[in-house]
């Protein structure tokens, strides 16, 4: 860029082009909308985290002393609902995805900028509804809304919580739709499908799940609301319905939803590992298509959540087999990332530390998922802490490691400032230690028989529970640190060069932060993705190599 020599503060970019609250609330710039999302998902992360903290505090002692059973039920329900629907699902696509998808393919914006802004408003409306619901009593069904408890028995605010999830669901449908159209129709000249960054492939696959899965949970919520409000018999056996139908419809969305959460993080890991190994990704096509394979296979495994709910042996066998199958594309990714690092010149920057963390935690989470996919073990550990530990290794260990790695990787691009590298590495280490201390004991607890969703437990489980609670405190500190130094760096951080990591990819060819239309002129792509063999590692612009 011709203007690259001017100091950041004097160049016009998307942050300093306009000021004032209106310029943010009515913006249609995908980068500003990404920041709006960043603020709101961070808010809900801390709300959800607060519930988690209260849960862990209650479980410090075997007796139910901090809260009553009813309150405890509400705590884990609201923790799950906020974290799943208001944090994990939008966290990567709506923030980093929103920011990067157009830039990485050389477009000026997403295909539908106004729909993008509408998505954020839908998210906010859903968020206000769920906050109101929490403040006026909350819900106690668990985030799964299982019938007939949710439709006929509980007297908590099911309708309002359902509405919140419904509205937030449409926010993610429109985000997915926007991404798919953008990737199909807005690529810069020369940006062929075979040259797309893997982060784009990952978001593309995620979007497919968003638009196919989310409408099903939307109609399921409507049916629950109709049964609760008008006594229409659909799921309640007393009215002739079948509660298993609810579970099938619910998990048809909610299993693939796990891939909505993890796939974008996998895309981030691909970007980070190639960059800090200075190598082309090993097996580009396999990594790219494994995302699509996960999206497709992910829709065929939902009933593994229902092995003990009443299902024919043959159906259970098929779903067990398919659940093993979906592990194959995930394993392909892990092996290819490892092969990419082999003989690479690895630098241990903060994003790379998070990528290492991701590899370890995702592997443990994935392998214990195979335990749960096998019928015999599943019967033994259903509804125990083993399940809780498993999905936290994927959804917190996997998703959050990827997200934080990505936030550090692209922070110079987003804010135009460098974060403090030393603090970054320290926080990554604290998160990794805190996470394992919190959730590894839960595998053991579950295996020896501690059930989930109880506010009391027998005294022999206490030692492991204390370890877990201690770990959660450390984890909390690990999550607070980046919050603090990111904010600090916005004012005091070193000014970021356009390409601090010497990375490949279009986003590093524009200024930091980018201008409103991302590029001064539409780029023409004449290189393959991750062409690190042909990028000289000059290290003259302050990258931490």
């Amino acid at each position, binding site marked *: 860029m011709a203007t690259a020599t001017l100091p950041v503060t004097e160049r016009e970019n998307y942050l300093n082009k306009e000021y004032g609250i209106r310029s943010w609330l009515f913006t249609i710039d995908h980068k500003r909308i990404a920041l709006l999302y960043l603020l709101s998902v961070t808010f809900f992360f801390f709300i959800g985290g607060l519930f988690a903290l209260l849960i862990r505090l209650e479980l410090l002692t075997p007796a139910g002393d901090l809260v009553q059973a009813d309150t405890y039920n509400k705590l884990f329900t609201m923790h799950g609902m906020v974290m799943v629907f208001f944090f994990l699902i939008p966290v990567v696509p709506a923030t980093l995805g929103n920011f990067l998808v157009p830039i990485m393919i050389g477009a000026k914006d997403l295909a539908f900028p106004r729909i993008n802004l509408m998505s954020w408003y839908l998210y906010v409306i859903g968020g206000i509804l769920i906050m109101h619901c929490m403040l006026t009593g909350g819900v106690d069904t668990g985030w799964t809304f299982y019938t007939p408890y949710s439709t006929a028995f509980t007297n908590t605010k099911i309708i309002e919580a359902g509405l919140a999830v419904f509205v937030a669901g449409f926010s993610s449908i429109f985000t997915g739709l926007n991404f798919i159209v953008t990737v199909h129709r807005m690529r810069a000249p020369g940006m062929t499908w075979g040259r797309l960054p893997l982060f784009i492939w990952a978001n593309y696959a995620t979007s497919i799940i968003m638009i196919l899965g989310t409408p099903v949970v939307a109609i399921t919520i409507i049916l629950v609301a109709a049964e609760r409000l*008008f006594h229409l*018999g659909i799921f309640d056996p007393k009215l002739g319905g079948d509660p298993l*139908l609810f579970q099938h419809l619910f998990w048809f969305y909610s299993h693939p939803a796990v891939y909505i959460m993890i796939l974008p993080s996998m895309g981030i890991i691909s970007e980070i590992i190639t960059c800090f190994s200075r190598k082309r990704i090993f097996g580009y096509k396999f990594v790219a298509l494994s995302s699509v394979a996960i999206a497709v296979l992910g829709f065929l495994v939902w009933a593994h959540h229902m092995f003990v709910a009443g299902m024919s042996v043959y159906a259970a066998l098929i779903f067990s087999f398919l659940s093993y199958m979906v592990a194959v594309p995930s394993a392909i990714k892990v092996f290819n990332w490892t092969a990419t690092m082999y003989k690479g010149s690895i630098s241990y920057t903060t994003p790379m530390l998070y990528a290492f963390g991701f590899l370890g935690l995702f592997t443990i989470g994935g392998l214990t998922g195979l335990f749960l996919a096998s019928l015999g073990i599943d019967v033994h550990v259903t509804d125990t802490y083993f399940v809780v530990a498993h999905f936290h290794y994927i959804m917190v260990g996997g998703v959050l490691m990827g997200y934080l790695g990505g936030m550090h990787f692209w922070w110079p691009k987003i804010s135009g400032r460098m974060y403090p590298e030393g603090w970054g590495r320290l926080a990554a280490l604290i998160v990794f230690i805190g996470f394992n201390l919190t959730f590894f004991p839960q595998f053991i607890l579950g295996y020896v028989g501690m059930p989930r969703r109880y506010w009391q437990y027998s005294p022999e489980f206490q030692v492991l529970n204390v370890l877990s609670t201690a770990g959660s405190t450390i984890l909390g500190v690990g999550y607070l640190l980046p919050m603090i130094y990111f904010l600090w760096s916005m004012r005091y951080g070193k000014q970021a060069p356009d390409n601090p990591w010497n990375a490949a990819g279009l986003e590093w060819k524009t200024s930091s932060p980018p201008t409103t239309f991302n590029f001064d002129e539409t780029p023409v792509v004449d290189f393959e993705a991750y062409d690190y063999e042909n990028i000289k590692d000059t290290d003259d612009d302050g990258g931490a190599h």
Partner: protein
Amino acid sequence: MSDSPAVTAHNPELRHHFADMAQQKDAASLGMWLFLVTEIMFFGGMFCAYLIYRLQHFNDFAAASQSLDITLGAINTAVLIGSSLTVVLAVNAAQRGKRKLLVFYLVATIVLGCTFLGIKAKEYTQKFEEHHVPGPTFHFIPTRMAGHPEQPPIDERHAEMFFSLYFVMTGMHAVHMIIGVGLFSVLTFQSWKGRYSAGYYTPIENAGLYWHFVDVVWIYLFPLLYLISLHG
């Protein structure tokens, strides 16, 4: 904003982030098709529930279905197919840049849509008066089916489930009709003001796609809900 090299760059409807009108139109129609895919999944959940329960309780569903008014249902089917035709003619008029004709067909579509909703409201009223609306006051006495003298006894609870599904499915369909009528009202106003021309009529086309989709849903709903007993 006007730095696009394409010859069509001067079309005032071209948004800044597209290179030319063709790219913009492609993006809009792909977006609409994807939205219809989400709609298929949305209705799919209900059709799935309906099919499972219908297989489980076929006799009860067939008996309950007998009480629906096939004549009104058939008229409504004809009305909707007619409205699909007027939508096609509206898109055609837009393509040829005939403003008055476009407005005429859009209004015709709205009138047909409202006719459908009116007839539907009449049917709902009938059901309400017959106590066929699920709830505490529900009760159902099956009429004798022609050709089925040895009719098994009917489980009233399962008949109630039929009506539950009937109201949810036709209700969601009606909501989509109302949204469609609203959409066409806005488009009629804009067309009257002359916003659409042979060079730019994507919104008309996309609203048309949506309307066809809603019609197709009804084409499935009508036999599934009204005509069960005819093939049993």
